């Protein structure tokens, strides 16, 4: 498959072991700029582990991770975030003691150009930066239609809204690459199709590459450019949605071998 676009994320031969189990086993992955790339596979296949390796929470024991050409294998999560990678979490990691707006403002940390001494006296520069960032946050809140609940505590919100807030927080980082871990989990049919539209416009209007883990097959098939299927930490299949849908190995991974059902 020849693509004239550059790779934004490359995993080369990535492996990690927990105790005796290889959670990720010689994984190779290549995501092109502005692609929507999906990782699917049965539970326990190592998908979130792969995300954690990519975003720096775990360190791979073998292999290399390249982000826009830079080797990030040994980097810490915050350093990777500085390079332009944002993510959401499977079980939501919102700041529960803060409002929606404050959650997003937290993401503006690396975009705020003040130092400790400025902040100690709270000079004009501090106030200007704050206003500038707050405006950016409001912009994103509007984009996500969250502007009306900006001042609500995130714990007062329903689960689908919380998920959208976490997405907004990741966007507030102004990332080049967005990692979404099961963004549609817990959403109903309508909410899921709204989400699909949202992801497509994130790619189209904001130019952000999206890498997502998902179980909702209709969503995956409808918005993904390419899909990789994992099982037992290894790649089972990689290709276009149509190719994946019809691949026998994928069916086997999810449903098991036909003969093994007694």
């Amino acid at each position, binding site marked *: 498959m020849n693509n004239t676009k550059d790779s934004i994320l490359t995993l080369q031969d990535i492996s990690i072991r927990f105790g005796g189990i290889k959670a990720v086993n010689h994984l190779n992955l290549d995501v092109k700029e502005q692609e929507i790339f999906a990782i699917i596979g049965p539970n326990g296949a190592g998908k979130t582990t792969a995300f954690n390796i990519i975003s720096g*929470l775990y360190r791979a024991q073998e292999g290399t991770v390249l982000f826009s050409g830079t080797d990030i294998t040994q980097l*810490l999560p*915050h350093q990777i975030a500085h390079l332009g990678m944002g993510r959401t979490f499977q079980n939501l990691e*919102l700041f529960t003691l803060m409002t929606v707006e*404050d959650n997003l403002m937290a993401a503006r*940390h690396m975009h705020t150009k003040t130092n*400790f001494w400025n*902040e100690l006296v709270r000079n004009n520069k501090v106030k200007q930066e704050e206003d500038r960032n707050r405006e950016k946050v409001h912009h994103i809140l509007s984009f996500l239609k969250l502007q009306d609940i900006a001042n609500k505590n995130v714990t007062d919100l329903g689960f689908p809204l919380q998920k959208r807030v976490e997405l907004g927080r990741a966007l507030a980082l102004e990332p080049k690459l967005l990692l979404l871990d099961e963004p549609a989990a817990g959403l109903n049919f309508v909410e899921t199709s709204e989400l699909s539209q949202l992801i497509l416009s994130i790619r189209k209007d904001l130019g952000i590459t999206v890498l997502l883990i998902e179980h909702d097959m209709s969503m995956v098939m409808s918005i993904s450019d390419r899909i990789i299927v994992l099982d037992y930490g290894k790649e089972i299949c990689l290709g276009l949605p149509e190719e994946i849908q019809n691949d026998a190995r994928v069916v086997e991974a999810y449903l098991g071998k036909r003969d093994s059902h007694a």
Partner: protein
Amino acid sequence: MQNAKKKERKIISLVIVVILLLLAPLFISNYILYLAGVIMIMAIVAQGLNTMIGWGAIFSFGQPGFMAFGAYFGAIVSRQFPMLPFPIILIVTGMASALIGLVIGFPCLRLRGFFLAMATYGFSSALFVLINFFNNLTGGNEGMYVSPPTFGPLVLGSIEAIFIMIVLIGVIAQFFVSNISKSKTGHAWRSIRDGEIAAASLGINIAREKLKLFTFGSCLAGVGGVLYAYLIGYLQADFFSSMGLSFFLILVVGGIGTIWGPLLGSVMILLIPQVFGGVFSQSMNLVYGAILLIFVLVAPKGFLGLFESLITSVQSRRKA
């Protein structure tokens, strides 16, 4: 706009209070000035702990140690360099305390919650032992006299002068703390408290920010310490080692995580012996323990928390 007016009113009332405080020495007895001085100093040190616990969930048992360090450092520097004006001494002590905080924080902050607390306790206690060990420098348990602060030819030997100095430093400290609270750094600290993993994924350097916070808190403790040395005029190692739990007491009563909590808590805690003085002097511990328990069981957010919930319940009743 409503918000701007509210802010104006707040600032004006604060300025009035500060002016009143600065004029207080004219009307108030020395004993009360002295007590008020101690209250404000304890509030400053407690504020250091407050920022650590309230914003970063860093439980430090080390504040008394840093306070002692600041006190002795300031006193010894004053003695070795009697010509130095007191603002210099205060700044240098603050920086030295921050440096010690950095040095101690660096290894300690690698540990989690409870182990971190015990490590800070270990360092703090070790510091007290060292203070006693180097007793040719510090006077150990026999104590050392602290020469009053000077500014060129001016000697601030009176308690009124020191009281005013404490008020001014207290105001400045509160100003700084309030500003940091609203800044990106304060926000980063609270993010770390609420979710370290998420904070890291947002580009916040967890290790560096925790260290910054710890250094900030220990700097406050050190400054409080040197002010204490000036106020009392005399230092003994066991002044500080018995303070251990007072700061936690102050924070529980005043409210952890609020800007005014430490001052409120300090006022309450230090006034109690005055009120109950005669009757309960033997068992002050009993009273403190009872207060701590009552607050923890009934009002975990301290007085300010009670105040807040009172306001919200009144507000919600109005809406209904």
